[in-house]
């Protein structure tokens, strides 16, 4: 393990590893085939700094207004001991009337330094509730859970953990995107469920370590969102079993990163060679071509939706454009043309200037057919 962490340390350079959060963990399940990202994530490399240094920064993903709207909605739902939330929990989880306890852990401080304390307190409260001892705990507000990712502890902050009298814990996620007529925007809901899956795994781990069955954590995520176009909250239950499984698989894979590391040439590093220790004033001095070369030793698998979860997406896209990879045409095109890598190869097959390999016969026929239709339509002029 020590040799592994030292190898990862070499890759990262002499900077602190970038801590994961629920969002970045959720992103692990997206595009698992990308080895470049798997290695960068395992080593805790700051992909955003890398992208900025290489001149392909990702535009800011969330507007400050969206963030403040989210915070506002969360505050509204949790206001006055979670009054609105409690009605929803009673409705969805059939919480009995006496279970209305609300414990706010943010009194211990909300700064990053207080994370440790909050986690310890969350842990003891959850175990107390699981044992059925101590004061009654129904809603734990601002809890902090811990998950081990690539050998390092990561602190996660679920919106709320609810405990039910039958001894089942539920993870509650509050999101500010509207569910209109029972329909949530697909990508947002999927992201929320993945985040919830990370919390559920962390909670399961906590209970398993204390000798409880992981069954005591409900695999159903409770999602609180605004209803239709109003600010009234509504609750939906989402089965997250599938996401939990795939996230667990990815986490295990991060642990087994050795195989991927073994394929890298020795001495490779993604260190940006900062000229100072202060994060605000330092500048990266690493040679860009050299860094690009280092990145190219890892195999990237660019997908059109990479920009949703990987800060390096624009860099990979630029590379894919350069290499005329099919991937830049989007997922449906790359699925249709499975087995062909580049646009040039596809065009070659279509106009017959390139002989198809034995397994490409069908595809080549289809491409030639498409080409003939196109020629008929445009008279071959286009």
């Amino acid at each position, binding site marked *: 393990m020590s040799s592994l962490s030292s190898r990862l340390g070499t890759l990262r350079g002499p900077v602190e590893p970038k801590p994961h959060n629920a969002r970045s963990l959720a992103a692990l399940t997206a595009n698992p085939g990308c080895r470049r990202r798997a290695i960068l994530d395992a080593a805790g490399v700051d992909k955003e700094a890398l992208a900025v240094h290489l001149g392909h920064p990702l535009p800011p993903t969330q507007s400050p207004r969206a963030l403040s709207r989210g915070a506002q909605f969360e505050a509204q739902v949790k206001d006055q001991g*979670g009054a*609105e939330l409690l009605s929803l929990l009673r409705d969805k989880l059939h919480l009995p009337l006496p279970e209305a306890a609300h414990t706010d852990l943010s009194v211990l401080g909300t700064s990053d330094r207080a994370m440790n304390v909050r986690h310890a307190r969350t842990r003891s409260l959850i175990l107390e509730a699981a044992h059925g001892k101590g004061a009654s705990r129904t809603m734990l507000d601002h809890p902090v859970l811990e998950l081990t990712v690539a050998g390092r502890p990561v602190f996660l902050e679920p919106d709320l953990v609810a405990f039910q009298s039958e001894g089942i814990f539920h993870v509650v996620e509050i999101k500010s995107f509207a569910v209109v007529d029972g329909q949530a925007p697909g990508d947002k809901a999927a992201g929320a469920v993945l985040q919830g899956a990370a919390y559920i795994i962390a909670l399961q781990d906590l209970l398993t370590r204390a000798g409880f069955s992981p069954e005591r954590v409900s695999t159903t995520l409770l999602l609180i969102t605004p209803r239709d176009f109003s600010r009234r909250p509504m609750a939906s239950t989402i089965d997250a079993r599938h996401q939990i499984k795939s996230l667990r698989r990815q986490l295990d894979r991060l642990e087994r990163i050795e195989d991927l590391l073994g394929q890298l040439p020795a001495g490779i590093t993604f260190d940006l060679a900062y000229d100072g220790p202060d994060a605000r004033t330092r500048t990266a001095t690493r040679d860009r071509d050299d860094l690009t070369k280092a990145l190219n030793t890892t195999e990237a698998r660019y997908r059109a939706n990479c920009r949703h979860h990987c800060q390096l997406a624009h860099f990979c896209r630029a590379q894919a454009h350069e290499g005329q990879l099919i991937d830049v045409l989007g997922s449906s095109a790359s699925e249709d043309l499975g087995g062909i890598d580049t646009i040039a190869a596809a065009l070659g097959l279509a106009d017959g200037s390139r002989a198809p390999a034995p397994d490409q016969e069908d595809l080549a026929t289809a491409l030639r057919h498409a080409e003939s239709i196109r020629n008929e339509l445009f008279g071959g002029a286009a």
Partner: protein
Amino acid sequence: MQEPLDALEKHMQQLQQAMRQAQMQRDQALLSHLRAELRRAQRSYDALFDADGQAPGTEEPAATHPGPRAAKMPAREQVHQVLTLLTVPAAPKLISQVHEALFAGSLPTSRLATLRRDEERSYRSSPGARPYYLCPALTSDHLSPARALLTISVWPLEERIVGPLSARVHYLTSALKFTEAVQRLTPDPETMPLGARQLVHHYALNIPGALPADHHPQNPATAPDLALLREAAQQELAVHTDDDTHDRRDAAQRARQQLDEAGRLFGAPFQTARHLRSVT
């Protein structure tokens, strides 16, 4: 006393004419300069006008402020008034909402932002100089200040402590007290002011059994059934009260043993809280 006002009026008139000329000549720099000058003149005019306000005839119509006395009360007294009405610790947002619904004038939460710190500073510099202080509620776990909740120092320690169930108990109690006050002030539910109506509706939505069976969610404008709301709140309150009182009494006992006078009012400093936690 009228001459300066006359002079100002004349000056303002000249400025306005100059502004129109500047606009015709499209001289933006001059225009903005004149506009600033006019604003300054207007301010001096207002100041003089108010100073003269004592003179008969120039008095502002008082009808715009139904309770000018209440509006001029210091924020801490307004908070005291609301807390006395609710009888339970409350967050600035609720205090502001209740104040707006029941009393004249508004009490924006921004005015309450520094209140807690000011009160504590005042207490520490000369303890007991004021008849009451606004203090934070204390958490039953750590006896440290709870987030955002305000109380009055003259309340018994038990009532200034919040346990796990207290948030719900406070919610239900405030619903009861608020509806009582609303009924006293506006016996006819049809004439209830908007702020009060919204708050009552919020309570009714989140207390089981508080909405009439024929309630239509699409039409929140219908007059709420206050009696039903009160009955529902009382029923749920009966479920929680015993446990909650027990928790709080225990915590209060601990606080009396562990904390000094200032600590019992403003909470244990965080270091002590950390120590307590490592022991338990």
